[in-house]
C-alpha cells in the first residue's frame, strides 16, 4: 500500500502508539483487499453503541483511545441504545452502558443514537466516500443515496473516524457497484422486508438489481436491512428509482446479468409465519431499523381509536420520537396502548429468553433474522394480531 509521508509518520508513532495502531488497523485491513492507498472520508458511523458485559476486547481498545485523548476527525454518528432500562435483565447484560456512552462522547461522537443516521444526523451526498459501520445504514447509503462505503466492522469504524481515512477497495470503485443479479417481480401485494429477506439469501454478497417498483423510503430502508441480514448485500438497485440504476443497462454496466431470478407472491408469503403461529406471539415489535417520522406517522393511523390486543412497541429514531411526541397522533397511539421506544428492539428484546421465553411477531425482516423466537408477518398480519385490523 502506498502511504503518504504523514501517514508513515503516524504509523511510526508520531501521534502516539494508540493513533499508530488505529492507522495500522486500516493498513492491514486494506492490505487484505490489495487496497492501493488510504482515502479521506466525509463521515463515519459507529455500530458499537452497546456495552455488552461479556465482550471485552472492543471496550478495552475504546478505553485506550479515550485515555490517549484522541478525538474523531470527521462527523461521526452512533447506533441506537440497547434499552438498558427496558428490562431488569438488560441492566445486567448492558452493565456499564452509561460509562461506555460517556467514553464514546468523549471521543467527540454525535449522540444521535440511531441506526437511521442518514435521516438528519449524518446526511451524505451522492458520491461521498464514507467510513460507516451498521449494515442497514451502509446498504441504504450505497443504494439509495449513491454514497460509497464498504461494510466496515465495529472498531474499524472508529479507526476510520479518528484518522478520517479508509482503505480504497470494494464499493469505492465504480466497477464493483454494478448489478450482478437481475430480480424480476411477479407479485400482487408488496412486502418489502420479506422481499429483502429473500433477495439476501439468493444474492449473498452479490449486487441485486430489481425491476422497477415505486418503493417508498421506509420500504427501501427495511428491504435493504433485510438483505444485509439474510445476506451480505452492500448495495442494491431498483430500476428507475435508485441513483445508479436509472435503467437496467446502466445498472449492469452494459453487461448481461450473471443470473436472473423471479420472485413470486408465493415466495414472499413463504416468509410469513402460519396464522396460528402468529397468534401465539405474545409481543409485537416494529422498527428495525428504527422507524422514521413518516413511517411512525403512517403506521400510527391504524391505531387511532383502537385498543391493542397484545403488547406492541414502536422503536423510533430518537429525533423522530421527539417530533412525534408533539403531535395529536402520539396521544392517540398511547391511548391505544402502544409503547414508543427509542432503543434498538433487537438488543432490548434479546434477553427475554430464560425469563419465560416469549415469541415476538414483527414486520421487520432484519429483526426476524436476528432475534431468537421471532415470527415474521407482513403489515396486515401484524396489525391484525395487534387487534387493530379486522379479518
Amino acid at each position, binding site marked *: 500500500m502506498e502511504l503518504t509521508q504523514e501517514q508513515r509518520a503516524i504509523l511510526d508513532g508520531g501521534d502516539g502508539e494508540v493513533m499508530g*495502531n488505529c492507522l495500522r488497523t486500516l493498513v492491514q485491513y486494506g492490505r487484505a*483487499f490489495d487496497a492501493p492507498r488510504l482515502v479521506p472520508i466525509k463521515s463515519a458511523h459507529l455500530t*458499537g453503541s452497546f456495552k455488552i458485559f461479556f*465482550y471485552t476486547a472492543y471496550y478495552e481498545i475504546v478505553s485506550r483511545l479515550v485515555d490517549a485523548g484522541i478525538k474523531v476527525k470527521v462527523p461521526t454518528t452512533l447506533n441506537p441504545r440497547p434499552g438498558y432500562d427496558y428490562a431488569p435483565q438488560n441492566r445486567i447484560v448492558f452493565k456499564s452502558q452509561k460509562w461506555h456512552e460517556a467514553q464514546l462522547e468523549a471521543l467527540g461522537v454525535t449522540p444521535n443514537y440511531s441506526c437511521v443516521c442518514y435521516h438528519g444526523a449524518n446526511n451524505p451526498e451522492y458520491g461521498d466516500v464514507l467510513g460507516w459501520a451498521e449494515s442497514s445504514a451502509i446498504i441504504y447509503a450505497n443504494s439509495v443515496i449513491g454514497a460509497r462505503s464498504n461494510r466496515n466492522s465495529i*472498531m474499524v469504524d472508529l479507526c476510520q473516524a479518528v484518522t478520517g481515512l479508509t482503505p480504497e477497495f470494494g464499493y469505492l470503485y465504480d466497477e464493483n457497484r454494478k448489478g450482478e443479479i437481475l430480480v424480476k417481480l411477479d407479485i400482487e401485494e408488496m412486502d418489502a422486508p420479506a422481499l429483502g429477506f429473500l433477495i439476501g439469501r439468493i444474492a*449473498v*454478497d452479490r449486487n441485486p438489481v430489481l425491476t422497477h417498483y415505486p418503493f417508498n423510503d421506509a420500504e427501501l430502508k427495511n428491504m435493504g436491512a433485510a438483505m444485509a441480514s439474510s445476506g451480505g448485500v452492500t448495495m442494491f438497485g431498483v430500476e428507475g428509482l435508485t441513483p445508479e440504476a436509472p435503467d437496467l443497462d446502466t445498472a449492469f454496466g452494459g453487461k448481461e446479468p450473471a443470473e436472473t431470478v423471479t420472485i413470486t407472491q408465493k415466495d414472499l408469503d413463504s416468509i410469513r409465519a402460519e396464522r396460528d403461529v402468529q397468534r401465539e406471539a405474545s409481543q409485537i415489535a416494529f422498527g428495525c431499523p428504527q422507524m422514521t417520522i413518516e413511517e411512525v406517522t403512517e403506521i400510527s393511523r391504524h391505531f387511532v381509536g383502537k385498543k391493542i390486543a397484545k403488547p406492541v412497541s414502536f422503536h423510533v429514531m430518537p429525533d423522530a420520537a421527539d417530533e412525534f411526541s408533539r403531535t395529536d397522533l402520539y396521544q392517540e397511539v398511547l391511548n391505544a396502548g402502544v409503547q414508543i421506544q427509542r432503543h434498538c428492539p433487537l438488543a432490548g428484546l434479546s434477553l427475554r*429468553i430464560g425469563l419465560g421465553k416469549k415469541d415476538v411477531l414483527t414486520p421487520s425482516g432484519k429483526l426476524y*433474522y436476528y432475534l431468537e423466537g421471532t415470527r415474521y408477518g407482513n403489515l396486515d398480519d401484524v396489525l391484525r394480531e395487534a387487534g387493530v385490523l379486522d379479518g
Partner: protein
Amino acid sequence: MTTLKCKTVIGGRARGKAMVTRQPINFTAAMCKVPNMLPSKRAEIRDSHHELFRKNIADRVLVFPSCIGSTHTGLVLLDLVSMGRGPAALVVQRNDSLLISGVVLSDVWFDRRIPVVEYEDDDLYELVEDGADVTVDGDASEIRVAPSSREASS
C-alpha cells in the same frame, strides 16, 4: 495428504478438525446469544437459520463460502481470536471485509491472530470433508488435508 493451493488473506499456520458448511455464516446472529455469554460456551453457532445450529466452532478449521450480516461481526471475532477461544483458522470461498476486521483488530491490538485463506472453487467441499484433519498454512498459501483413517487403512 491432499494439498490445495489457496490465497493467503492473513498469514500464520494452524491445524484442526474441519467444520464444513456450504451456507454463509452470520457471526453476529450466531454468536451474540445468551448461551455464548456463559463462560463455558463461547463459540456456539446459535443462529437457528443456520445448519450448524448449536455446533461449537472453537479450535475448528471453519470452511464456509462467505460471511453475511451485521457489522458487529468484528466484535465477535475480535473477542474470540484475542482470547484464543475461536476457530483455529478460517477457509472462505470469498474474502470479506467483516470477516477480516475482527482478525486484523486482534492482531494489531492484542498481538494474536489466526490464519485466513481464500479458496474459490466449489471443489473445496469435495476435497475437505467435515471432520477432516486440516492444516491451514497461510505462509505457504496451502491447505493440507490429512487422509481420513478409512483411506489410510485401505
